[in-house]
Every structure is written in structure tokens, then in C-alpha cells.
């Protein structure tokens, strides 16, 4: 990037022209969204006096009448959605409609409003851009508490503004089963919190399509064989230790309940279940979850024990067979299977060679996964979790780390500060793996605090994933000044105000006094 310094206004006739034949419909829709947000945006520059501070500069500013979109000669013209659904390694953010879409997101961020005039002070800037990580994800739990479709769509919009590329949708869990499955409609009929808290097949199609048109791939996680109690509402025969007490002996959080992995019935169910869901999803990735399976649950389950005896198997054998079965279905649909790291590291389950492992317990597990020659995604709880950490959970986290038992009694949680992000991911940036995601687990979240708990913190992660270790001026991101109000914090403040301007309830990072005076609230100023 070479920055410009000339004030430029948008002409009232400003338009965006596509300079290649047959632009796809989703690109045309994206262009029209960009134009509409440029003209309806009310965001004024964050300086004392806001827009009025620039009034003089605008008098003699040149006017921009058009933005021309082109692809390099010979580029294949595909829709943004098609580009988004390419395999992750083959995804192209350059010379593609997807690249143009990323560029439009950048273009939108250059403009301010002052009394209806849209202007930038960056005239003359040249930007050459591309992502550091192709997989830039947000993992979203819609099972502990439910979120209406409109909340998910708004989240997808905001994700696209910061160039995130994957929505990892943890759609079901032990508490509720909101996913309507074509082959088993009874699962959501009986397992959802209520009839109004279901994602119908149409809802899923709509969300996936909406996301794909915004450069976001949807990786659906059907967490199994643990985290499945809610399946028991419709199919009690499939679930071991359902809501068994004390829950803490049989699960990492209430209610207890896991699929009876040793039962041929369950295997047949799982096959049809994964097949039914996978066939409705266009993406090339799908997850079977697999975290926190609990051995006493199966050890004390008569049916499971009888099945094991009859089939002369151990729990480990049954687990291998279960994972092999569901991975086989995922692979048969041409999708890359994802799995949670404890399946591989704690339970030594055999997985397909192209499996992607989601490292979630601690960042230190990444090396162990790499040793097994498996690809992985960073989602370590010690950096990435968006939920608050109460003192109780803090103690738990410490004990997990100290004992390093590998079988965490519960999900460790840590509240991550926006600024923390910009400094503490150094090891990540040096890692050869270019895939990360930040999760929101919803035990204490719901539509009421979705925006405020996610934004703008997720945007800090999105920058780490996109920009990588080096800033456009060649300096390292990680340095003593990284979180100065004149640097990353200033841009994050600006992004937060833009999010609010567009209806996302992102929280304030500082008093407005500080926001309008970049750097004056630094520790040493």
C-alpha cells in the first residue's frame, strides 16, 4: 500500500463499472450494496470537530466519478459464491470476483460523510492486497441458546466487512437441536427449544447462499458422538447416559448424553444423518466435531456394553468405527472432514489423511497435531475464546493447564481483549498453518448480547488473519506501539463506529474523548 494524501469527493453521479463481460449476479448485487452504503453512510471522521475539521479541504477537492472493476486478462469469470466454495487451498482472492468483492470492502472503508458529502483524504492511494490466511473463521454456537436467522445474517454482513472467509456453524449440541434434517425432521421437532427456534432447510439454504455471496464459506459442524443429548428427545434409543446424574461424571457440561457408538443402529443413523445434511450444503468442508467424549458414559451404559461384547470391540474400536463412518460420508460428498483435536490427541482415533484438525484446548496442541502430519486450524481457548472468564472458570483453566491431563473436565474459557489480539498472536503468525477461527460459545450469550460480545473484538482477529505479521509500511505488527491509539486501536475505533453506523451494536473501546484524540489516552502520553 502506498498511502495517498489528497482529498477526493465522490461525485453525486459516482458509479461503479464492471469492465468485463457477463458479470455474475452476486457481484452486481455486491456493487449495488457498496454504492448504497457509500451514499447512506453517516460516519464522520474521528477527529475533533468530526467532519467540520475537513470542510476547508473539501472546497477544492477533486471529484471521483467512477470505480472501474476489472479482472486480469484471461481470468475465469465465476460468481463470488462459486469462488467462495472452491477448496480452501485453491481459493483465489486475486483475479477473481471474490478478489473484487474484497476490494469493494476496502473501498467502502475509505469514505467519510460530512453534511452529505462523501470524501476521502487518501486520494492517490494504491493498495495491493491479499490474505495472509485463506481460512479466517468465526465459530458460532447456535445450540446453547438460539439466534434468529436475522442475527446470523447481520453477523455474516459484519464478517464480510472485515474480510472473514468462514462461518464455522456449531449448529447443534446437547442442549438443543435447532437444525431441520430432511431425513429426520423429528430431531428438530422434538429437540429444538421451541417450534420457533428451528433452522428450516430453507433457512439454512438462505444463510449459506447469503454467506457465499459475501465471500464466506459455511462449515457446518455436527458435533458427535458427544454433545448430542438433544438427539435423544426424538431418538432415546440412540443416546447413552441421557441427562444422567451427576452430570459432571458423564459430560463436561449438563446435560450428559452421547451417541451409542457401538450400536449398528446408531451407525446407520449417523450415516443417513450426515448424508442428509451434507447433500444440502455446497461447501467443500464439513465437521463431525468430536470434542469432550466421556468414557464413563459408555462404560456404564448397558446397551453400549452389550453391543461391545457382542461385537467383541473396545470403546476405542467403536470410536474408530464411528469416526470412520461419518468421515466416509463427508468424503463421499467431496468434502474435507474436520475434527476436534482431542479425538486425535487424546483418543488416538484414526482419521482420513486430508482431515483438518480444529485445535481448541490449548495452542500447544498444534505441534502435536502437526507431528501426525495432519492439517489444523487454530482455535485455542487460551487466546481465542470470546466468552467472559469468571473466577471459577479461571481456576479451572489453570488446573487444566497444570494437570495437562488432556481430558479437560470442562471447556476452558478466557475473555480475550481486543487489544490483546494485536500483540499476543506472534507464534500464530510464525506458524506455517494459515487457518484460524475465533469462537463464540453461547452458554451466556444470546441475541441480546451477540453484537456486543463479538464486535469489534472479532475484527481484531480478522486483521491478524488477513494482514499477517507485517503491516503495509513494512513494520511488524507486534511491537510495543501496536495497541497505541494512533495505530491499530485508532483503526479499530474507526471500524467500531462504522459497524454502529451500519446497525451492528459494536461496543465502545474507549471514552469518545480518547477516540477523537488518537494517542492521547496511551499509557505514556
Amino acid at each position, binding site marked *: 500500500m502506498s498511502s495517498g494524501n489528497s482529498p477526493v469527493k465522490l461525485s453525486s453521479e459516482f458509479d461503479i463499472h464492471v469492465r468485463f463481460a457477463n458479470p455474475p449476479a452476486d457481484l452486481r448485487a455486491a456493487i449495488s450494496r457498496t454504492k448504497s452504503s457509500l451514499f447512506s453512510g453517516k460516519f464522520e471522521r474521528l477527529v475533533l470537530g*468530526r467532519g467540520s475539521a475537513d470542510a476547508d479541504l473539501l472546497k477544492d477537492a477533486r471529484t471521483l466519478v467512477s470505480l472501474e472493476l476489472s479482472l486480469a486478462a484471461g481470468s475465469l469469470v465465476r460468481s463470488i459464491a462459486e469462488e467462495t466454495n472452491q477448496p480452501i487451498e485453491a481459493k483465489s482472492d486475486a483475479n477473481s470476483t471474490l478478489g473484487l468483492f474484497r476490494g469493494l470492502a476496502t473501498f467502502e472503508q475509505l469514505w467519510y460523510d460530512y453534511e452529505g458529502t462523501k470524501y476521502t483524504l487518501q486520494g492517490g492511494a494504491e493498495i495491493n492486497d491479499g490474505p495472509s490466511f485463506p481460512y479466517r473463521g468465526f465459530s458460532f454456537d447456535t*445450540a*446453547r*441458546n*438460539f439466534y434468529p436467522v436475522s442475527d446470523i445474517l447481520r453477523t455474516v454482513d459484519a464478517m464480510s466487512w472485515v474480510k472473514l472467509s468462514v462461518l464455522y456453524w456449531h449448529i447443534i449440541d*446437547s*442442549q*438443543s437441536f435447532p437444525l431441520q434434517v430432511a431425513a429426520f425432521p423429528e430431531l428438530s421437532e422434538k429437540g429444538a*427449544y421451541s417450534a420457533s427456534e428451528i433452522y428450516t432447510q430453507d433457512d439454512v439454504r438462505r444463510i449459506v447462499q447469503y454467506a457465499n455471496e459475501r465471500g464466506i464459506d459455511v462449515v457446518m459442524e455436527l458435533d458427535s458422538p458427544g454433545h448430542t443429548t438433544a438427539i435423544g428427545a426424538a431418538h432415546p434409543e440412540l443416546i447413552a447416559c441421557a441427562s444422567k446424574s*451427576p*452430570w*459432571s461424571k458423564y459430560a463436561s*457440561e*449438563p*446435560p450428559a448424553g452421547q451417541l451409542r457408538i457401538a450400536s449398528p443402529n446408531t451407525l446407520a443413523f449417523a450415516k443417513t444423518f450426515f448424508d442428509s445434511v451434507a447433500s444440502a450444503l455446497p461447501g467443500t468442508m464439513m465437521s463431525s466435531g468430536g470434542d469432550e467424549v466421556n468414557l464413563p458414559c459408555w462404560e456404564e451404559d448397558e446397551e453400549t456394553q452389550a453391543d461391545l461384547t457382542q461385537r467383541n470391540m473396545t470403546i476405542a474400536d467403536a470410536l474408530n468405527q464411528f469416526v470412520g463412518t461419518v468421515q466416509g460420508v463427508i468424503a463421499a460428498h467431496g468434502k474435507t472432514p474436520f475434527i476436534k483435536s482431542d479425538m486425535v490427541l487424546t483418543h488416538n482415533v484414526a482419521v482420513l489423511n486430508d482431515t483438518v484438525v480444529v485445535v481448541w484446548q490449548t495452542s500447544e496442541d498444534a505441534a502435536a497435531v502437526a507431528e501426525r502430519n495432519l492439517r489444523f486450524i487454530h482455535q485455542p481457548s487460551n487466546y481465542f475464546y470470546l466468552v*467472559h*472468564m*469468571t*473466577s471459577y472458570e*479461571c481456576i479451572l483453566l489453570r488446573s487444566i493447564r497444570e494437570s495437562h491431563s488432556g481430558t479437560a473436565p470442562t471447556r476452558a474459557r478466557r*475473555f480475550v*481483549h*481486543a*487489544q*490483546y489480539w*494485536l*500483540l499476543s498472536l506472534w507464534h500464530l503468525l510464525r506458524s506455517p498453518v494459515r487457518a484460524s477461527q475465533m469462537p463464540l460459545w*453461547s*452458554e*451466556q*450469550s*444470546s441475541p*441480546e*448480547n451477540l453484537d*456486543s*460480545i463479538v464486535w469489534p473484538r472479532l475484527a481484531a482477529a480478522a486483521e491478524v488473519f488477513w494482514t499477517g505479521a507485517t503491516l503495509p509500511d513494512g513494520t511488524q505488527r507486534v511491537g*510495543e506501539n501496536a*495497541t*497505541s*491509539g*494512533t495505530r491499530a*486501536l485508532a483503526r479499530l475505533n474507526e471500524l467500531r463506529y462504522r459497524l*454502529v453506523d451500519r446497525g451492528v*451494536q*459494536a*461496543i*465502545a*473501546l*474507549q*471514552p*469518545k*474523548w*480518547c477516540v477523537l484524540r488518537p*494517542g*492521547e*489516552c*496511551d*499509557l*505514556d*502520553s
Partner: protein
Amino acid sequence: MRFVVAFLAFAPLGEVFGLWPIPRSLQIGTTALKLAPNFDIHVNVQHAPSDLSDAVSRTKSHLKNDKLGRLVVGRGSLDSPAIQHAKSLASLKVSLSKGATVRSITEEARLDIETRSEGYSLTIPADGSAAILSANSTLGLYRGLTTFEQLWYQWSGNLYTIEAPITITDSPAYPWRGFMLDTSRNFFPVSDIKRTLDAMSMVKMSQFHWHVSDSQSFPLEVPGYMELASKGAYDPSMIYSPSDVKDIVDYAGARGIDVVAEIDTPGHTSIISAAHPEHIACPVATPWSDFAAEPPSGQLRLASASTTNFTAGLFSAVAKMFPSTILSTGGDEVNANCYEQDVETQADLKAAGRTIEQALDVFTQKTHGAIIAEGKTPAVWEEMVLDHNITLSNNTIVLVWISSANAAAVAKKNFRLVHGPSDYFYLDCGAGEWIGKTAGSNSWCDPFKSWQKAYTFNPQANISESQAHLVLGGEQLLWAEQSGPENLDSIVWPRAATSAEVFWSGPGGNASEALSRLHDVAFRMRQRGIRAIQLQPMWCALRPGACNIDS
């Protein structure tokens, strides 16, 4: 007046649903009772004040619109047979005890804090005969109405309880059950404040402590001092006009809430320099950390006679805007270095032959004198009695914030106190440091103060029996460096309801018992448009106790 410290006893009550705070005496049955289609509330009060009539109308509207299903699996479906055969309640009769003076709720809520009457009794027979609500004041009746509203659930068009007959005799353990909002670090529109007052009234809170100004912005328009807001507000749209203030205090009063304004002085006043640079020492001095607890630095020139008169005049004018009998002059985090480096202050001190501490004493006596002259009681932050040796009138109210451990020291000095300790009640803790270049440190008061932590607070800890009467109550507080309209509801509710129960019902409640009731009030808040957060997965909310650590 002395406050009886009651410890909650739940054992004989069995299951208790949506009541928050839990009444101090409560008997319930197991009979279903529904509201008759023509249910009405009859007020038998001579010359009933209009705010009582309005409160009754709101209660009827809440009954109609809450549409809250009982928090059990299947919601109301399991109650359906019982509802079918239930008797119908046609009337709630509301009356004052014989000889009680009839005043408006608003007047009652603004009485001297130790003389208010908030008790009530409520009887709901199981046989469909009229329910009776009585009290010694309209304020007590209002508290009883908020209890009545929490008893009813909806299932297929019926409003019902399964706990009739119900007999409640209730009154608060402490009169100060508050919430503090900082509207200076970031601004909150009037509509946000009103919604907050609605939520506060649902849980019988009595005090809205409004930290209206600080160093970052001065959003309050004060007649005679209009330049403070016109130059010190963030934006012309981020100002509370005198009519906004009247709107807010009237809205609060009608809901049984007294509004205690705070103009924090002599520290936390940097932004006054936008209009009056002559009154502020070390405005926006660098490095700020040498001159203030947070940027920007700047304090009133407490040794200057002109500044002292200006500030006293300001308090007289503010006192006229707020009908409460209490007004806070703040007084936290006064920075000595700021005054030591300020040439004008040093000259003033020298001329008067005073130390900074002596000047603070003179300054405070003058500002407090102005407040007392307006017939009001001053309130101050704890440093004014624990760190400085200044003369305060005996009835000054002291707000404890630094640590819960400091309350005992305040009581020893024989001052009345309000608990707002950062280690229990600060709602902003745990979100990370907001100062730039801090390498992502934790917030100074980490960790996050969960509702469970707040619920364990004991207002009488380390306070002797003879000083127990000095404890007026307490409040949870939202400092707004990292808050704004975007997260107001989600960071405050339902957590701030915790202290409302601690100070109404008295300490000693069992958090695992309380959880299902707190879920209930949070669900009811959401039905009324307050974006209270979920405390657990809904699976747990529908199965009280099933997600306890030992279940």
C-alpha cells in the same frame, strides 16, 4: 430509624417462581388460579394521585403484554389441566391503611431516605375472592404492584399462577438500592436511561445515582452555566437539557426511584476547561498518568476563591434541577501533583497560607454549604473521609468504591454509607484495559464481577452492631469507558438486579436457589424490551437445578 437485618430463609417455601427480590415474608400454596377475563384493579384511595393511577394502568398493561411462559419444560403445557379447573380472580383491591397520608408515589420516593415507607402486604386467596394489596404509602402500594406483576404466567390465552393462595408481607432491608450510571465517558440518550429506570423499578430499586459529568464530557445543561455543556458535551446531540432532566426525574419518581445527581469535584473536571480554562489546573497535562487516574487530567483550582464560588454556584443551580434530598459532590481520586505543579494554585495557597489539604477543606465546606443551603444532604466518595482530613456535616453520605474492606472504616467514623465496592459491584470489570499501549493488560479491577459474586455480598461485614444503622444500602455501578448504548442492557441486566435483592431481602440468600428466579426476571425483562442477557443455556433455564455443579 434502624434497619433490621434479616437473613433469608427459603426452606419452608418450596418452589418459588418469578419473584425478585424475594419478599421478606411469603407463604404460598399449590393451587392454580387464573385472572378472570374481566380482571381489574380497584384503587380505593381517596384522591388517588395520578402517578398511582398511571402505575395501576402500567401493571394492567404488563399483565396483558408480558406473555411470559413459565420456565419449565413444555412451558405452560403441563399446567394446562390445572388452569382449566382453576378459579378466576376478578379483582385486586388496592388501599392505604387507615389514617395514612395520601401523597404521590413521586413525593414518597423523594422523601428523606431514612423516612420512606416502602412496605406492603399482598393477599391472593385461592378461591377467586378478591386479592388485597395494602400499604402505608402509595410507594408501598407501587412496590406491591411490581410484586403482583411477577406472579403471572401465560399459557394459551390464560394468565395464571400455580402457587395460590399467596400471602406476602414485605418491606426492604435497606432504603438505598441503587444503580449508578456514568454518562460522561460515553453518552447515553434519554430513552436508554428511561428503559434502565423501567428495569430498575421491576426489581424495586430506589436510587438512580447519576454520575452525569466527568473529565471527558459535560453533557448536563445547567441554567446559568449553559456554556459547560455547549462547550464540554461531546456533541450538541449529546446533551441533557433541563427539560430532559425533568423528564427523567419525573419518570423515575413515578416509578419509586429517587435520582441522585453527581457532579464529581474537584477532580474529574478537566472538560470544564473547555468553557472555563481559568478554573482548571493541569488541563490535559502530559504525561497524564502524573496528573490523573485516567486521561485527560484536569482538576478545579480548589485554592482559588473565584473557582470555589463558581463551583458552589454550580451546585446551587444543579440542586434546583434535581428534587432529591441528596446531591453528590464526588471527591474521588484528587491528584496532589496536579496542584503542586499548578502555578496559580501555588500562588493562591501561598497567599492564603494554606496547604492543599486545608484548601480542600475550605473548598468542600463551601460547595457542601451551597447544597445544604438548598435543603439537601451532600454525598461524597470514600476518599473524602478516609484519605483527607476535612470537616463534613454529620449526615453526609459516603459512597464506598475502592474496596469492600473500606466500609468498616467509614462506619467507624460514624458516617452513613452506601456500598458500591469495585470488588463486588463494578459492572465494567473484566473487559481488558482500555488505555492505549498497555500491551493488552487486564482491567484494573479484573476479573468480571459475576452476579454470583455480587450475590454473596454482606452489607454488615466487619461493621459492629452499634454502627449497623449507618449502612443505607448499596448499588452496582457502570463506568462507561467501554460501554455505550450498544451494550448498556447486556452489561447491566440482569446482573444489577443482584444487589437489588441483597439490599431488599437482606443478605444470606442461596445463589443456586436464586438462579431460577433471576432467570425468570431476566426473561420478563426481555418481554418488556430490556435486552437482559442469558445466564445459562435455555436448557438449564427450563430445568431449575439441573445444571448445578452437583446435580
